[in-house]
């Protein structure tokens, strides 16, 4: 991970290892003699099975052949705990056996050509990525141009729906507000906290407390905060059980429907995401602060800079690359936020966001086309942030 290691060959050139990797013929010659033809056979068999699988998949895609499998029920329908754990152990053993066979046959086989090795190392990953990311991604983009049953071509109608209909206007507005507020506030609080606890006696504990929410699932965090926002009507003999409303009552105010009163309820959902992401921001920024060269701090101090001035003119400019990375990273995570909204309001009361609306349209309304368009929109929104993020990463590497 240490990008500033001077000994490391620059990434991407790959030229340093070229001379080594090309197996020179005299060296490669004795190897096949040691290999066994049994393992070569195993390798060929694995390759053949893989090819048949790929062929079957392609044939089924074009509709020439329909897969009809009657898997044994212990394989696909596990009901008891014993069955589940047995299946898990079976799956892991199966995986280990297959991988061992591939590796052993590459290592022990007779006359293994040089291109077989990288192929064997990369093929499982490549097949999975094509099957699980590339093909579905392309298909979703295509489906976004079709109607709810993905039968009739409708052009950009789904996108027109998203950008013109009122309920989707609210969805887009909410997503925009989320992506605007969460990164800024989470990074801001994380930065201030990182500076405040830097090199104090309780630093480890203090940072652990803020970082703890990162370990909690969005669902768990959703419950934690729903409990805080819980509303009880303002009546004689009725106590508030949610902390937020109790504080309002202590302050002499009336209890408030935090999760129901639109549009402000969005802000109270956003608070949950800030609560989770601040720990991440604080940790990254704290590491960056510790990496500020001493001479800079020293020189500033000799010039009489201290306190807020140090923060404003030394700390913040020095960690600018880290700040950019944190803001963009949190923004990407926020753009895809789903669990918090799903758990706390289910997207009701005008709190839906793009990722949640994708789920609702795809799996509740069964409007495949619209769901696909929302997913594609998410993809399109993420791309510029990621590109910016990567470019900043590159820049910060160059600076160092």
């Amino acid at each position: 991970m240490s990008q500033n290691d001077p000994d490391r060959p620059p990434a991407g050139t790959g030229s340093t290892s070229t001379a080594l990797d090309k197996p020179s013929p005299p060296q490669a010659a004795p190897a096949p003699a040691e290999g066994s033809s049994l393992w070569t056979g195993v390798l060929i068999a694995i390759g053949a099975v893989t090819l048949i699988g790929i062929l079957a998949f392609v044939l089924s895609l074009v509709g020439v052949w329909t897969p009809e499998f009657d898997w044994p029920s212990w394989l696909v329908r596990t009901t008891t705990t014993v069955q589940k754990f047995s299946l898990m152990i079976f799956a892991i053993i199966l995986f280990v056996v297959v991988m061992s066979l591939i590796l052993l046959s590459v290592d022990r086989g007779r006359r293994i050509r040089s291109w077989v090795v990288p192929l064997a190392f990369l093929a499982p990953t490549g097949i999975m990525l094509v099957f699980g990311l590339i093909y579905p991604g392309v298909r979703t983009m295509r489906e976004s141009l079709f109607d709810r049953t993905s039968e009739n071509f409708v052009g950009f109608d789904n996108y027109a729906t998203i950008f013109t209909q009122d309920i989707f206007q609210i969805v887009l507005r909410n997503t925009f507000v989320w992506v605007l507020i969460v990164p800024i506030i989470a990074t801001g609080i994380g930065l201030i906290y990182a500076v405040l606890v830097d090199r104090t006696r309780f630093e480890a504990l203090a940072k652990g407390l803020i970082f703890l929410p990162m370990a909690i699932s969005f669902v768990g965090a959703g419950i934690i905060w729903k409990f805080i926002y819980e509303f009880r009507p303002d009546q004689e003999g009725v106590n508030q059980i949610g902390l937020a409303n109790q504080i309002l009552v202590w302050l002499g105010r009336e209890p408030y429907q935090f999760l129901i009163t639109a549009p402000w309820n969005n802000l109270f959902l956003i608070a949950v995401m800030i609560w989770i992401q601040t720990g991440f921001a604080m940790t990254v920024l704290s590491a960056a602060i510790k990496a500020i060269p001493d001479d800079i701090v020293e020189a500033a101090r000799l010039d009489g800079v201290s306190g807020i001035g140090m923060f404003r003119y030394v700390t913040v400019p020095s960690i600018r690359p880290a700040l950019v990375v944190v803001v963009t990273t949190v923004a990407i995570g926020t753009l895809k936020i789903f669990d918090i909204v799903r758990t706390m309001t289910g997207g009701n009361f005008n709190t839906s966001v793009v990722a949640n609306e994708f789920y609702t349209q795809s799996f509740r309304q069964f409007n495949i086309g619209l769901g696909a368009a929302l997913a594609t929109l998410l993809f399109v929104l993420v791309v510029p942030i990621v590109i910016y993020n990567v470019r900043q990463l590159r820049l910060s590497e160059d600076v160092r």
Partner: protein
Amino acid sequence: MTTTSPPAPPAPTAGVKKLSRAEQRAADAKTKLSSPWASLLAIVIAILWTVPTFGLLLSSFRPEQEIKTTGWWTYFQNPGLTLDNYDEVLFGTTTQFSTFFVNSIVITLPAVVIPITLALLAAYAFAWIEFPFRDTLFVAVFALQIVPIQVTLIPLLSEYVRWGFAGSFWTVWLSHSIFALPLAIFLLHNFMKDIPQSLIEAARVDGAGHVKIFFRVLLPLLVPAIAAFGIFQFLWVWNDLLVALTFAGGTPNVAPLTVRVAELSGSRGTEWHLLTAGAAVSIVVPLIVFLSLQRFFVRGMLGGAVKG
């Protein structure tokens, strides 16, 4: 992402320097925090970030009637703890969290082991084997990180249905493994490139093939990296809702804890004795992992922040 992770062990020469630097800055820190307002602000933030979890955990041990009528802060005037909520949430016929807990474990282990193994092999090939289009392929894998999983869900689901194993553990394992691969390959590749080339060279001179080099030379050196990514992936899978909801549905046969908790929040949103205990059950494993492996955990989190 990777540049900003000095929790990695410092270079050997930095050890001496760091000490003096720490001493230098101690004086600085003193002046900085001597302001009572700064300390107060730090304490307020720390409390704000801790109290919500504390309130939930404390409530989960209070009797049902008290949870529903009084706030957890009244506990200190009226103490009384019980395990009844946990008993009901884990073993009650309507909640059955123990079943979903088992599902979470069964889902998580293979979904961590499989992608790490595959990614290790792929990262090794990208780092230390020369083959045509290597750099292009690596950039392509790197770029796949930006695909949001939402884009893949419906086509994947319909494939699983077509091949007849929808609604089984296999779909969840496979999906989590696929989604983890781009990031895992990228991170492990970075670690592998940091290993001195002379080590690999020496092994090759001794006649070791790629498989031997991978297992004998690289794997032992990569243990910290594997641990960091393993913890990240573990938490990602354990805490995931979207993938589980899509592929496992809500059935007690496959669905993990997160799905059950989210469902409970929707259908029985006022049953706070169940919700608090249920949420506590679902967060206890990640919390234990966090508290015991904090060092690796932070590193894994820093590395894997853009996933999803």
